[in-house]
C-alpha cells in the first residue's frame, strides 16, 4: 500500500533547556496535499511543531517523520537539505533588507534549484505574480507595507515549488482584510496540491475554511 502520510508525529515531546515543555507526547499525521491549521494561544506549541517538521529543532523524545524520513536519525546537513523541499513562511517575515524584492525571492531558487538564469527570472516573476507583487519587483523591502512584506515572504517560500508549505502565524501582524487575502493565497496553493500547515492564534479566521484544525494548549491537544 502506498503511504499517503507526508508528515507523522509519534509520541513527540519537546523540552527546551530550563525544563520548559513545549510539546507533550503528541501523535498526529498529515496527508499529502492536506491543509491543516494549528491553532492555540501564544506558547501553545504551534511554532515548535513547525520547527520540528522543518528540522530546525529536534524532538526530545518520539519520532518526527517527513516524507518517511525520521529527522532524528539523519545528519544536520541532511536536515538542511530536506528544508530545500519545504517552503517556510515566518511570522516576522525574515526578509533581507540589503537586497531588493527580486533578490529576496531569488535567494530561495539559488539555494534550492538548478535553474538557469532565464528560468530564474521567469519563476521569480511568476511567484511574485501569484502573490500580487509583480509591480514591486525592483522595490526595496522597506518600501513595502506589512502585508506586502508578508506576501514577499510567501513568494520566497513558494518560488521553488515545495511539496510542503509551513506558515508560522502568517496573519499575525495584519489587519483582518489583509489576513483574509493571505489565507486566500494559501487556499490557492492548496488547490495546486501543496501540503499546507498554517499556524494561527486567531481561530475566528480559520473556522470558515472547513479544514482540519489541530487545537493546542500548553503543548497538548485541546478540544
Amino acid at each position, binding site marked *: 500500500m502506498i503511504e499517503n502520510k507526508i508528515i507523522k508525529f509519534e509520541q513527540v515531546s519537546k523540552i527546551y533547556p530550563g525544563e520548559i515543555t513545549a510539546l507533550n507526547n503528541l501523535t498526529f499525521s498529515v496527508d499529502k496535499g492536506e491543509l491543516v491549521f494549528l491553532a492555540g494561544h501564544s506558547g501553545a506549541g504551534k511554532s515548535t511543531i513547525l520547527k520540528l517538521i*522543518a*528540522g*530546525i*529543532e529536534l524532538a526530545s523524545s518520539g519520532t518526527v517523520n517527513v516524507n518517511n524520513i525520521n529527522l532524528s536519525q539523519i545528519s*544536520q*546537513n541532511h*536536515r*538542511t*537539505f*530536506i*528544508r*530545500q*523541499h*519545504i517552503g*517556510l513562511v*515566518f511570522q516576522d517575515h*525574515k526578509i*533581507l*533588507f*540589503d537586497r531588493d524584492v527580486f533578490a529576496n525571492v531569488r*535567494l*530561495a531558487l*539559488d*539555494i*534550492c534549484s*538548478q*535553474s*538557469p*538564469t532565464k528560468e530564474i527570472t521567469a519563476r521569480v516573476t511568476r511567484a511574485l505574480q501569484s502573490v500580487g507583487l509583480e509591480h514591486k519587483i525592483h522595490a526595496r523591502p522597506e518600501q513595502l507595507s506589512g502585508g506586502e512584506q508578508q506576501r514577499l515572504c510567501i513568494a*520566497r517560500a513558494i518560488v521553488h515549488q515545495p511539496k510542503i508549505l509551513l506558515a508560522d502565524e502568517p496573519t499575525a501582524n495584519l489587519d483582518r482584510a489583509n489576513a483574509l487575502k493571505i489565507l486566500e493565497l494559501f487556499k490557492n496553493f492548496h488547490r495546486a496540491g501543496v501540503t499546507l500547515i498554517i499556524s494561527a492564534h486567531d481561530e475566528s479566521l480559520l473556522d470558515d475554511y472547513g479544514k482540519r484544525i489541530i487545537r493546542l494548549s500548553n503543548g497538548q491537544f485541546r478540544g
Partner: protein
Amino acid sequence: MNKLIHHLQSFKQAWLTIFKQPFEHLINIIVLALIITICAAGLTLNNSLSHWQKSNLVYPQLMLYLDSNANPADINNIEKALNKLATGTVKNYQFISKAQGLAELQQDQQMKSIASDVIDASNNPLPDAFVVNTATIESQPLEKLKIQLEQLPMVDNVQLDMQYAGKVSELMSFATSIGEFAIILFGAVLALVVYNMIRLQMLLKTDAIKVSRLIGASDSFIMRPLIHYAVWQVTLATAIAAASLRYLTQTLNTMFANFSNLFGKGFQLAPLELYQFGALWLALIIFTIFTVFLAVQWVFRNSYSH
C-alpha cells in the same frame, strides 16, 4: 553549470562588497599586503643566500699529507677513495707531489732563499699531498670526511680549518632560519587576519546567513561568497606585495652595489621570479580557502546550530 553561475554571482558579490566600502577594504588589503611582503621577503632572503653561496662562497679546503714512505700504489689507492667521495662532500682534488711542492716553494718570493739554500731534490723533506676542495660548509659532514680520510692507509695528517667552516655554516643557517621564521610567523599572522576578516564578514551578514540556513542553504553555499571575498583580497594584496618587493629589492641592490665598489665582492638580492610569485600566490590561495573553511565552521558551530 549551476555551480559556475553561483561562482560568478559570488565573484560579483565579492567585488561589490569591496567597492561599497573601498576605504575599509583598502586598509584590509594593505595589512594583508604588508604581511605577504614580509613572507615574500623571507623567501627572497633565502633565495638570495642560496645564489650567493653558490657563486661566491669559498668552501673549506682539506690538506691531506701522505706518509714520507708512501709509494705510487698508495697514492693511487687514495685517489680511488677520493673519487668515490667526489659526488658527495668532495668537489674535486689535486695531487701535489713532493717535487712539485718543492718547486712551488722555490718559486715563492718570500720562501725562495730558504728553499734554495737548505733543500734540494735529494733531501726534499716535503710530503706528497692532496688538496681536497669540499662541496659543503656544514661542519658535520666535513668532520666526517676528515675522519674518513685520516683512516686511509699511508695518510699521515689531514688538516681542516673547522673553525672557519663552523662559523660560515652557523652564519648561513642563522640567516636561513631568519627567513624561515619570518615565513612561518607571518604566515600565522596572515591566517589570523583572514580568519578575523571572515568572522567579521559573517557577523555583518548574520541576517542573510540565518535566513539562508533556514531556507536550506548548505555550508558550501554560504562559504562560496566568503571564499571569493577572501581570495580576491589576498590576490590584490599579493599583487601589491610583488610590486613593493620588486621596488624594495631594486633599492637595496643599488645600496649593496655601492658597498661592493668600496669593499670588493658584494651581495645582491635575487628577486623572486614571476613563476615563484605565482607559486606563492597559489599557496596563499589554498591557505586562504582552508582558513575560510575553518572560520566558517567555527562560526557555524558557535552561532548557527540548525
